[in-house]
């Protein structure tokens, strides 16, 4: 095996209290999502609010539980811009979904 093949194991730079705080924050955000689901708002506004909160939750999980906040920035740059770009490409078509209902011929 080459000298550089297996590198590195370091202890987490954050402690248990931080993880518990993140867990509580995730539970609170979930509670807010359930509350929002019972508010009478248009579908797209509801969708935007719920997905926005989910992105925050995902970021907390990735940063702290998955430890990415404490990895090299090069790892983040290798993995995530591509993922975000692909998702944004898909979202381009979401506008069509909002137009389809008004394009239906009256029955």
């Amino acid at each position: 095996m080459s000298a550089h093949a297996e590198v590195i194991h370091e202890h987490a730079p954050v402690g248990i209290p931080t993880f518990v705080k993140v867990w509580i924050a995730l539970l609170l955000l979930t509670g807010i999502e359930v509350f929002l689901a019972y508010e009478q708002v248009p579908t797209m506004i509801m969708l935007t609010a719920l997905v926005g909160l989910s992105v925050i939750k995902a970021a907390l999980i990735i940063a702290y539980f998955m430890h990415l906040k404490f990895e090299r920035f090069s790892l983040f740059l290798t993995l995530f811009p591509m993922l975000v770009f692909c998702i944004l490409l898909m979202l381009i078509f979401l506008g069509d979904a909002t137009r389809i209902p008004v394009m239906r011929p009256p029955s």
Partner: protein
Amino acid sequence: MSTQAAATARASVWEGGQSPYATNSKKFGMWLFIISDALTFSALLFAYTYSRVSNPDWPKPFEFTPAIIFSSVMTFALLTSSLTMVMAVHSMNAGNRGATAKWILATMVAGGTFVALHLTEWMKLINQEHVTPFQNPWGVPLFGATFFAITGLHMTHVVIGIIYLGIICQAVVRGKFKAEDVEVAGLYWHFVDLVWMFVFPLVYLMSARVG
């Protein structure tokens, strides 16, 4: 960290023969898998959202009791399992294999709770509401198709995760595997949790019966 490994990690990325990510190959491999799997779930969730938004007659079968309560408890179980998994990694880093095995078992129990509740929810939809992947009483077949495809694929990931953790746990108890192996298993488990953070609001909350 070995001295040689540390020196390797610090070397300039332009000098060759070093680790630009300063991480081990197993962890990097798992990250690549996670990103590719995230694209799969993204495509499925986007297809679901497109169908949901473009169809004003989309069914809202999920009553607050029991469906939303059940799915909220499932969310709680998965979030808690992520915390116990973090504790397992933390214990393994500290060299405490006994505590690591207990935390992994706690994670498996929470994952099992999630699967049991989810199957209960599925059985209710199939037997009482007569929803299948191909038809349902509300005349929007895409509802069943997208619901069972997304939640089914996610549940498969959870079941595989429980098996994966079981293998890691018995190895830890027998003194095999290193801390990085537990950490890599943790990455997979957190990803399963992360996907549910999008499935829960998009599939359940967006189809909650209000009023």
